[in-house]
């Protein structure tokens, strides 16, 4: 092995766990190239936020203080002149994203845990009855203009009557996997199909352009993802601990809160962050449901495309202040994310 030629030393790995110098070089070259592809656009946005309009329009300037003299005018405009008009959407985004994420993770985790540990058995007749009645209700309200609350009450009463009488006599039933598949399949539903009726629904009850409407919608949209990811975390927790607690007489809720949740913390962190990112960046639903009071940051960014042409410098500031908190949180939680997505994907 001592007198290998230069060629061999370049292209043959020195040992099993090490790479040959040539391939190591190539690997780093490609990885660094992609890092540049990732970072350069962000760098460009960052420096554009310190440019004056004429500096942007004159052509590419790459390095502040060398190519051009940075100016804080865009930052001053966004924070001082716009002031509350920036702060309001920002706070809206914070409130809506955080609240909807907390709710989605809570409700979704409960459902995911239950689907892992409790056997469900839904009669197919009950489900069919429900669908028929729901269709009839929608039909009655939209076609014949019956008042929606009365129709809903009648339909619910009919449903319970149906479920407790005929519903029981159907043999075939749906198990946990069917429920799970149904929950996840809601994610396939394109938001644009659901958003028109949701818009009309909120308009009817006078909640359009409010935090409540946005939070409820985001929570519903992200719920399937939470169930999908959290189910696998719960499935990975050994059942022995829960069983011994049950023998000691602890209730399910108690077991869930004191034993299961602490063990699933990494999964909760990863799911929380992922859903938070989705809610924070969401655009289409916000476009429909919020117009002024509940406007969120993505809409404000899009609004910088004014009649005078896109205001790149203001836009850049907004993009920077939108990314900053998320990047910070991700770096803090980054170990969990990889693991969290992994578990969800492996068994999903």
């Amino acid at each position: 092995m001592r007198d290998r030629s230069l060629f061999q030393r370049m292209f043959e790995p020195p040992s099993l766990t090490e790479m040959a110098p040539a391939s190591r070089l190539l690997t780093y070259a490609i990885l660094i190239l992609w890092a540049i592809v990732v970072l350069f656009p962000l760098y460009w946005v960052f420096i554009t936020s310190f440019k004056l309009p004429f500096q942007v329009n004159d052509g590419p300037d790459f390095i502040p203080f060398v190519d051009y003299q940075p100016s804080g005018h865009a930052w001053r405009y966004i924070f001082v002149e716009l002031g509350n008009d920036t702060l309001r959407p920002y706070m809206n985004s914070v409130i809506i994203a955080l609240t909807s994420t907390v709710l989605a993770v809570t409700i979704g985790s409960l459902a995911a845990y239950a689907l892992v540990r409790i056997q469900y058995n839904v009669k197919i007749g009950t489900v069919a009855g429900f669908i028929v009645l729901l269709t009839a209700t929608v039909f009655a309200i939209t076609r014949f203009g019956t008042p929606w609350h009365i129709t809903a009450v009648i339909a619910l009463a009919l449903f319970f009557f149906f479920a407790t009488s005929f519903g029981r006599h159907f043999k075939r039933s749906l198990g946990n996997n069917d429920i799970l598949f149904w929950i996840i399949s809601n994610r396939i539903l394109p938001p644009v199909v659901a958003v028109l009726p949701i818009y009309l629904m909120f308009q009817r009850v006078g909640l359009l352009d409010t935090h409540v409407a946005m939070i409820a919608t985001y929570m519903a949209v992200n719920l399937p993802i939470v169930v999908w990811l959290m189910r696998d975390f719960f499935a990975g927790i050994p059942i022995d601990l829960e069983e011994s607690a049950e023998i000691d007489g602890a209730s399910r809720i108690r077991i869930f809160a004191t034993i299961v949740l602490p063990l699933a913390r990494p999964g909760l962190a990863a799911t929380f962050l992922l859903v938070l990112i989705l809610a924070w960046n969401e655009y289409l639903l916000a476009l429909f449901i919020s117009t002024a009071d509940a406007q969120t940051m993505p809409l404000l960014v899009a609004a910088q495309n004014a009649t005078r042409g896109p205001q790149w410098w203001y836009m850049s500031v907004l993009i920077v202040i939108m990314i900053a908190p998320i990047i910070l949180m991700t770096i803090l939680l980054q170990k969990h994310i990889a693991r969290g997505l992994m578990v969800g994907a492996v068994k999903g």
Partner: protein
Amino acid sequence: MPQTQTAAISRTEPAPPKFGLAEWIDQQTGKLFVLPAVIILLAFAIFPLLISAYLSLIKFKLATGGFSLNYVGLRNFKKLFYGSQQYHLLGTFDAFGIFEWTVFAAALALVAYWFFRFFTGGYFNIPGFIGRLITASLFIALLWLTLATVFGGHPGSLVVTLFYVTVGVSLQFGIGLGLALLCGQAIRGRNAFRIIFFIPLMVTPVGIAYMFRMLADMQRGPLANIWQWFGLGEFSWAADPWSARMVVLTGDTWQWVPFMFIVLLAAVENMPRDQLEAAKIDGAGSWQIFRDITWPSIAPVAATIVLIRLIEAFKIIDLPNVLTNGGPGIATESLTLHSFIAWRTQDLGGSAAVGYTLLFVSTVTCVSFFNFIGQKTRKTEA
């Protein structure tokens, strides 16, 4: 079933008899845990779905003092598939040439072979047959549509969406897998790369769209000198259909490679080390190692994330809306954007009809992928 059944869901294992409110609550926890999620999804997914189905059958008109809804049956769909809006959804067609016929015949042969394998494979069953029939018909129809519009004609929003989905997801998967394999080797700084590569996922798609508009500016953007060097200084990508689509695709890829990368890297890192080392001792080449060891062990993960991406990719709207506003003409319009534009022009029925078309195509595609490709990767693993 012995216990009380007040709702659709019931526990199968009979609970031990207990009395009192606390015990009753404890017995009902099974329902309490799942019901909130079920009710929310019913209210925000199933109920809207039904309303939307109704909307797709009406014509919405602003009238004095409000609006009027007229039931028009399937006319909204008819307009999209045969009528005045056909160019928008399906595109304008061009006659097949030799190339188109060859591809089409090859695809037909492939589908025939697929059915032949199914019939002779010994697993024949009626639901499986119907499922394959639906998948195959949609595949053939979409292929025909693509061939008829992409070469010569003008593709409509359906084909453009398919372009974003198929080309986008393949690109993202290819780059993500490549980076994950490189990063999964014994190299230093893996964590730094992991954090850096994850960043694009955190940027709001609207922001990405504007960012790429800045970058793609051929006169004032950072790459202006490179474009000029290629003699493209005066070229306007926004005016050419394919370059506009490519810019949208680039933005989408930039954002979603990280997702593929991070999950595939985790899968690569989880691979059994001993097998790898044994293969290396036996002198296996890197392609052999990839094919026989790496790929089988990451295939299930790969199938799942491709499925997740497929589901999300069909919904693309932010990028084309902000980058190109769907233009030039309708060249970069996705189905969601098409539906949104219809909504903006008060055409509620047309908007819902486009939405339903999208729902149908994406559901069949995702379910087909899950059943015919996703499941297979699991079997090979076992």
